[in-house]
């Protein structure tokens, strides 16, 4: 794969725009009157996937320069490429609940007053934009959905009140999918939410936190008194879909 070369301290190789792989070019250094054999390795990829892994030649061009005392050289600048194991995290846009119900997930933010702006339409859930995404190596992915509304009735997240440990949940994003399994279901008094920093932490093992409201309902005390908090952990890797 290599050829006679000026070595690591020698002049850069001499290759114009070219295809992937290893190229061997012999270039004459006209100015110096010296013939230089140059090997330019554009890939260090293992043999099994050399073509896939070789950095792509860039559209950027290199031209020969002739400086009388210097060797005449050409080297292509190459665009760095992500390694094959790169995962580009994406926010979830769909959740499949244990029953198989598919719920659209929209980006949602925390308002200035600290309230999480869950989508008004109870048929959609909200992914907290300060949390982890599918493919992030650490942290909590937090998704909240309405349990009900006076106008629309029960929401799909009402199902969470009846799920149990071991039940499956799937998240999907534009290009990614990951399966989770429910590890715990718990009731959290609404007033204690701010103390549960683990629900919103960017560190810790990857996990999925699903939140909806739970009884009792006291109209005179702000409505639902509890949150149902479902914690799930990945049961499989991040996949393309």
């Amino acid at each position: 794969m290599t050829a006679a070369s000026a070595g690591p301290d020698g002049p850069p190789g001499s290759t114009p725009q070219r295809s992937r792989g290893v190229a061997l070019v012999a270039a004459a250094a006209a100015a110096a009157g010296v013939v230089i054999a140059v090997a330019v390795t554009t890939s260090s990829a293992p043999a099994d996937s050399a073509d896939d892994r070789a950095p792509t030649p860039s559209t950027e061009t290199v031209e020969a320069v002739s400086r009388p005392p210097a060797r005449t050289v050409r080297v292509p600048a190459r665009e760095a490429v992500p390694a094959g194991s790169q995962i580009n995290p994406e926010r979830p846009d769909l959740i499949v609940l244990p029953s198989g119900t598919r719920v659209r997930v929209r980006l949602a933010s925390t308002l200035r007053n600290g309230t999480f702006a869950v989508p008004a339409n109870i048929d959609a859930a909200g992914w907290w934009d300060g949390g982890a995404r599918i493919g992030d190596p650490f942290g909590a992915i937090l998704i909240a959905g309405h349990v009900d509304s006076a106008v629309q009735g029960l929401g799909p997240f009402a199902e969470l009140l009846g799920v149990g440990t071991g039940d499956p949940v799937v998240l999907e994003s534009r290009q990614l999918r990951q399966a989770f399994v429910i590890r715990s279901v718990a009731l959290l008094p609404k007033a204690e939410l701010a103390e549960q920093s683990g629900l919103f932490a960017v560190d810790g093992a990857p996990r999925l936190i699903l939140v909806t409201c739970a009884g009792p309902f006291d109209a005179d005390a702000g409505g639902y008194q509890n949150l149902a908090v479902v914690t799930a952990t990945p049961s499989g890797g991040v996949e393309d879909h």
Partner: protein
Amino acid sequence: MMKSQLRWVSLAALLAAGLSLPGTPALGKAPATGSVYVIQALPDAAISVAVDGKQQTADAAVKTILGPYDLSPGKHTLTLTSNEPSWTMKSVVTVEAGKSKDVVLHRPASASGDPVITVYPNPMAPVNADEGRVMVAHTAVVPPADITVNGEVFFANIANGEFLTKDVPGGTYEVAIVPTGTSDDPVLGPLDLEVESSTLTQVFAIGQPQGGGMDVIVHKLPLQKAGSGAPTVINTGSAGLVDDWEVSGAKDTGVQPATLLWLAGAALILSVGASPMVKQLSRRARDRRIGGA
């Protein structure tokens, strides 16, 4: 090949490594220029750099980070010159408005190969609060490598000219470079890498293992924050329809805080000291830090 007989490169200089934190383009308006950094990753070479024919730096030693050169969108010519041995490279780099690139002059994977230029796009997208972004780049005379973090493979199978990026919580990570598929005998490290929040930390592995010639160049750039703060109120119901529903899975509500504590307490998915080897290496790494403030 060449995976062993490594000796620790002195990393003391890394503490003083040039960590440039230049300003980002002004907020709120589309930047009219793009940024180009030139990173000199050729050991034992002194490189002069000219941009569009204008001399910028003479005799830049290895690990020098030059720039940023704020350039108008379009093609610009970089001229890299070495006096000993004598050669000149001329490379046309395409600049995009609002984008940042690292142009790295480095060794190829083959020990007998000639220097190459690789253009790395700098991932400048905003990052979540309390997180930083790490990009590791392979610009060394090494076959494809894994990057272990706290003893576990975290960045898998990176070849020369490639890179991997992840967003991680701010903190200090124990990082090592090992030949792909092996867990021992690092070609570099482990050493401590400090990842600051709201910062892009780029780590370029350079040099060659023989003779302890592996090293890293750390390039840090500020990132803007993404996302909103943690909610203190979540209202997800208003009709009282589930007032008396039993939450079937929550019989033992005491589990909840404990579970959360456990999850949060697992500060890293990667267990520290997973093996005697890691423990041993950890001790060796104790006083080696990179990217430190």
